[in-house]
Structure formats: C-alpha cells, structure tokens
C-alpha cells in the first residue's frame, strides 16, 4: 500500500502521466491499464489479475495448432441477408474489410502436438461472434466432417449470442449445431470445448455447453443471460465474479480452468488420453 502510494507520488513528481499517444488496454475485470504493446508481449493476459483477454482467430490458431498444420475448411461462406434487415449487409461488408474474415468463425483441420483434430475458433471482433447462418453452417459442417472422419473436435467459443439481424433463422442455428454435436457424439468421438471471453447467450445454450470436456480460460465471462438483463430483472447489482469462469467451475459447468500458456499441452494430453495419437496430417487435394 505504502509502496503504491510512493510510486504514485514519484510518478506525479516526475510528471510521468500516462502518455495518451500510447494505446492502453483497460482490464474489464480489475480496471488496470496496461500498454497494448505490453499486453501483446504478455500474450494478452492482464498482468494484475490474469484475465485472459480476447484473441483473434488467427492468433488463437497460431498458439494452438502445430506450425503450418492448419488447413481451413469452408472458407468461402458469406452471410446473405434473409430478413433484409436495416444496415445488416453494410455492417457485414465493413467487418469483412476490417477483420479480413468472412464471418465470425474459422474452422479447419490441424494437428496439436501431432494429434489430428478439427478446430473451431470464434472471433469476437465480427459482430461479437453472434451466431447467424454462416457460423451455424460452418460449425455444423465441422462436426459432421469430424464424425465422418473419426476425428475429435476442439472448439474455442466466444459469442454474444444469436445474430438478431437474421431473426428466427439465427435461433435455429442453435438446434442445428447441437444436432451436429449429437451426431459426432454418437460417432464416439471426443469433443473438447474451450470457453473464452465472452461465451454467452445462444452459443452457451447450444454447442458450447455440450463438450465431453469443458475447459475455460481464467476470468472469462460465461453465461446465458446478459448481466444487465439480470440486474434489470432483480433490481440489484450483481457481484463482480458473477458468471466468470471461476463461478462456472464452482457451480459445476466447467471441468477445468486452464491458463493460455498450458492450453496447448493440456489439449494434447487430453487428445492422447482418448487415443488420438500423433500422426502426420494427410495431404488432401
């Protein structure tokens, strides 16, 4: 405490105010500000509270899959606009340009320390990774592919829920993806979910909650209903740790909380424990 105070005083004395030109990351859990540059060096983990911040799909694939092993599936799916919803088509185009993604999920084949697996990675930059037709279809195809080819699935989830702009069609993606998980389950294959920040709404209420093993990164938000919706219903403030990964572990909806640094080796061990031994990825044409 005293030391902190001293630092603050010294800072003030030296005129060492944070430079507004340096982009900062403000931790949504503890409020600590860290320079973006420093956050990148730390693997996007808050140095104060260990909150595991959001990664792009490309970043996630890079730290999960063996080098050069990832082969994308169904890369050319783009959302149509079934409701002709005001502003939706423009929003999609804008985000495609901004993120270089077609939509909010990337699926593909890879090896993790040699074990072949189907990989699903959601990217929250794209409309909070809400689940519309493209997300639903790609995830469904990934599970069907894995069921047919006797492969495990590792899914890194992140989502704000349903894609409202696709109306009821978006809601039905919950049933469609859950059906595909069930098909993969009946094929006797392993499905590992990794819940990342934030996993909520319709994705929580469908394929994200159906893993044989459910992992989560520290301090990430996991829940069904939005915090503000609940606070509005009960008219009181919710505790800070409500719906965090640790809360879900305590209530029995997460098997393990795994730090990013340990994720790849944990996944590899779990895959091998289920008999998915290391083998070279088959060349496909």
């Amino acid at each position, binding site marked *: 405490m005293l030391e902190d105070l001293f630092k603050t005083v010294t800072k003030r004395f030296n005129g060492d105010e944070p430079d507004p030109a340096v982009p900062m990351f403000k931790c949504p859990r503890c409020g600590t500000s860290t320079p973006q540059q420093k956050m990148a060096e730390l693997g996007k983990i808050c140095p104060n509270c260990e909150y595991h911040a959001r990664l792009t799909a490309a970043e996630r694939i890079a730290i999960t899959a063996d080098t050069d092993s990832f082969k994308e599936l169904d890369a050319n799916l783009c959302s149509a606009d079934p409701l002709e919803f005001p502003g939706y088509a423009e929003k999609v185009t804008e985000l495609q340009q901004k993120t270089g993604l077609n939509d909010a999920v990337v699926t593909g084949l890879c090896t993790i320390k040699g074990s072949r697996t189907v990989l699903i990675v959601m990217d929250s930059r794209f409309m909070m990774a809400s689940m519309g037709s493209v997300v639903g279809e790609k995830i469904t195809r990934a599970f069907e592919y894995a069921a047919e080819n006797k492969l495990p699935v590792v899914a890194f989830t992140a989502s704000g829920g349903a894609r409202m702009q696709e109306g*009821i*069609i978006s809601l039905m993606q919950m049933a469609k993806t859950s059906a*595909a998980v069930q098909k993969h*389950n009946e094929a006797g294959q392993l499905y590992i979910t990794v819940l990342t920040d934030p996993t909520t709404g319709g994705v929580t209420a469908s394929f994200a*909650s*159906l893993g044989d093993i459910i992992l989560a990164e520290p301090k990430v938000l996991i*829940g069904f209903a939005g915090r503000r919706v609940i606070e509005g219903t009960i008219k009181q403030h919710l505790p800070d740790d409500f*719906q965090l990964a640790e809360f879900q572990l305590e209530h029995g909806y997460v098997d393990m909380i795994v730090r990013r640094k340990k994720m790849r080796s944990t996944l590899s061990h779990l895959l091998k424990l289920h008999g998915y031994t290391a083998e070279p990825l088959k060349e496909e044409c």
Partner: protein
Amino acid sequence: MERTNTRSAWERQLLIRDKNRPTIRDYLPLVFEDFYELHGDRGVGDDGAILGGIGRLDGVPVTIIAEVKGRNIQENKASNFAMPHPEGYRKALRLVRQAEKFHRPVICFIDTPGAFCGIEAEQRGQGEAIARNLAEFMSLRTPVVSIVLGEGGSGGALALGVCDALAMLENALYSVISPRGAASILWKDASREQEACEVMRITAEDMVDFGIAEAIISESDTGVSNDLDKIAENLKEYLVKTISEKSEKDIDLLLKERYTKFRKIGVYTETHR
C-alpha cells in the same frame, strides 16, 4: 390454411399478450383424456413454468410438455410468467426420456416470453439445460410434435421446439428476441417495438416461408380472437393426424428427417474458388 390472417405482427403481439388468451390449462381438458400431471426434475425441484404429464390423445397414450402462462397474479406467480428455470427444462427432458421408454409420442406446447434470466437460473446452468434438450430431443426415439400457442420466445421456446413437425396457432409468434429487445438494438429505443415487430418476420406465415413450421392451425373461422372451443378442436384435429402420420414412420427414418429439418435451415452464399 383456408383464409388469410389480416392482422399485423404487432396486432398479434397484443392479442397473444391479452390475459384472456387461452392457455394450456384451458386446452388440456378439451384436447386430451385421462391427463395426469407429473412433477419435478428429480434434482432441484418442480418448475411451475413447465407442465409435464401423460394422457391420451384420441385414445393414444402421449406425453405432454407445456409452458404455462397464467391469467391472474396467483397463476403467474406459480408459473413465473411462463419463464422456465433450468429445472423446468430438465423435468421436460426426464419426461420425454420416459416417453421414449414407453414408446409414447411427445407433444410440446410452446408459450413463453423466454427462459428466465436470474441468478439462480445462471447458477443452475440455464444455458446447459437448454443445450442439453436441443441435443437430446434430436435423438429421441419417439415422435415429437411441437406447437407454438402464443409467444415463442427465443431459446426458452426452442428448448421444447426440436421436433418432427412444428405448428403455429395462426396468431402465435416465434422470435429470436423480443420486439422491445430488437428495437433497443436497432434504434437504441425500446419504445419502437411496434416497428421492430414488423421488421423481424415473426408470424406463422413467416415460419412456414422459412421452412421452420410445417403448419398453421386456424384459430377461428369468424376471425374472432381467442375462441377456445374452436381452437381446441383444430388443435386436436392437427395433433391426431400428425401424431398418427409420424408414428407410422420407421423410427430411423423419422430421426433422419428430424435432423434434416433443422440441418437445412440457414441462408448464406458460398463461392467456390
């Protein structure tokens, strides 16, 4: 459907929110015989928002699952305004597995603003409970028919909506988000719910267009709303016909068709390079 429903989505929204709109409690004695309500999820308790039980439909034993709306404050208190907790969905799952064991067809009645959003609901895994039902209903080896009676509110409705055939009462609505919610996202103004209602495409006709519902059940020939006897008669007629059709099918074929019914829903483009 023989005649056209001229009501706008908003007019239907008002109609299904009307406290005089019949609820499952009204339909039960008119559609089924020998109904016995069965309670509890065998874990946490008994959720009044979801009713479950067994009875006969035209002599045939069936399992009935329904979201329960109340018509006064006591009834609504008991049924939590038809907003289920996880244990409600788990009660439903317990009873449909029982139905599968005894080769009874399952009939689900959907009528909810949505799954309940609260602390206990989160602690007891609302998301997991809904997800589990979606997956398990998909492989249930007995016919499942679902009917939206009034409000089909989001995931809370879909949790009873994985089925071989879905029918909508003609004024019923099915939506991913409440009109208020849609309006506040669209225009940052919840009061524009009336406009949102029309944009979202949530009517029975929309559901048939999208391939989500197979049938629209007529509510009355005169266009008068909430004609209980007439609606019950039409409901029963539809159910008897559909349950018998689905029961005659080979179960593996039925499951394949159920998978395909949901598998094909989605609108996207795919360019091949």
